[in-house]
């Protein structure tokens, strides 16, 4: 019985050492991961119109605006008075 108890104590000691070793390895692994891959705030959702550089229609030639309006009216099947071009984003 005594030898069994001593064996169980030895087993317990070894097991605790192994557990702490494994978990300490994990702790440092996590610390490394967190260090090299820091948290970044997710980009705030911006509306497409806000993200795009605004160009005043007035800075674009009226001929171009007329041409675009005509093509859009044909494409949409609407009268040019039914819609209004607010901005043009040149590439």
């Amino acid at each position, binding site marked *: 019985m005594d030898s069994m*108890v001593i064996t169980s*104590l030895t*087993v317990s000691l070894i097991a*605790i050492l192994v557990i*702490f070793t494994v978990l300490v390895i994990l702790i440092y692994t*996590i610390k490394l991961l967190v260090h090299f891959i820091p948290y970044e705030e997710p980009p705030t959702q911006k509306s497409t119109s806000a993200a795009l550089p605004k160009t005043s229609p007035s800075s674009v030639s009226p001929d171009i605006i007329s041409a675009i309006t005509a093509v859009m009216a044909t494409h949409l099947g609407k009268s040019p008075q039914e819609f209004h071009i607010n901005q043009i984003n040149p590439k």
Partner: protein
Amino acid sequence: MELTFGSAATKIIGSTGFSSLTIGDGTMILVACVLLYLAIWKKFEPLLLLPIGFGCLLANLPLSMMASTDSGGLLNFFYQGVKHEILPPLVFLGVGALTDFGPLLANPSTLLLGAAAQIGVYTTLVGAVFLGFDLKEASAIGIIGGADGPTSIFIASKLAPHLLAPIAVAAYSYMSLVPLIQPPIMRWLTTAEERKIKMEQLKPISQTVKIIFPIVVTIVCCLMLPGVTPLLGMLMLGNLFRESGVTARLHETAETHLINIVTILLALAVGSSMTADSFLRLETIKIIILGLLAFCMATAGGVIFAKIMSKLSGGKINPLIGSAGVSAVPMAARVSQRVGAEEDQTNFLLMHAMGPNVAGVIGSAVAAGVFISLFGDPTGGSTHAEVATNLISTMSASLK
């Protein structure tokens, strides 16, 4: 074949379960009713104790062929999932899908609390040897201190299958009693000032780290302790389903339907192993006592280690979160929160306690891996081919 009224009546009476009912069966039916009472009316871990209790009831109805040992019986087939270590890892898959390792990753030093709480496992191991169990049996009993049902069943089925029923019942019963067992120990080991310590808010963690973590844990732990791969591997796979963001359907299935189905099969299988022969023994009483010791020592180990960490960190850690290192997710973390809130209503410890709580799951799995490395066959004993052959022969025998 001619039957007279008398012979027919005699035959029918002889075929009823009443004719074969023994005192042992009757006692076990009573035990089953107690478990059902605790589950339904006292709400002690009902998701598990109810099917365990009902499995026990079915297994002890004479001539019903529902015990785990009744070859060809329904629950014997369910029991193959325990015997061949299929069901506990599947429960772990669901647990992984349900677990957020974020609090642990935000404060990785709490992993040490998950390790410290395993002290309960080893004090119980020594106690079990002292009470006359051999080392394999003592290891299976000691793991009750990990407060992790699937791990207890996994280790018991591997190292001491004849003790599976009392170990499983003790593990789940004490898990349900965590809110009663832990608070007095926590209060006894801490001062009011320590219980009032407010911890800093946890830092947010990158999603990439959350994805890499289960892969790294699998590689590190399973290389060091291969015997624990079925449990830890499934736990981490479930977590990868959750965090990867590309397997929404698998994640949803694992955390709901799969874990529910497997829980039913596992609990019924465990209940079916609670026959009079295996349960009504002196060893059962010893295991119930040792199980209580395991839970108390695990709680004390976690709290004492957290006190040490608190002192070393200059009072930045509330020692109450140490008790959550005993696994039992998330009940143990809720107990830390509740005991902390008793001292200061504005102290929110829940998320801080979730770190050691999920660390306890990893810690108990690692403790199981150490036992398998020392006393079990890390390769699992039998090959899959042997398992399949055994299943086919069992099924053939039942069909004949």
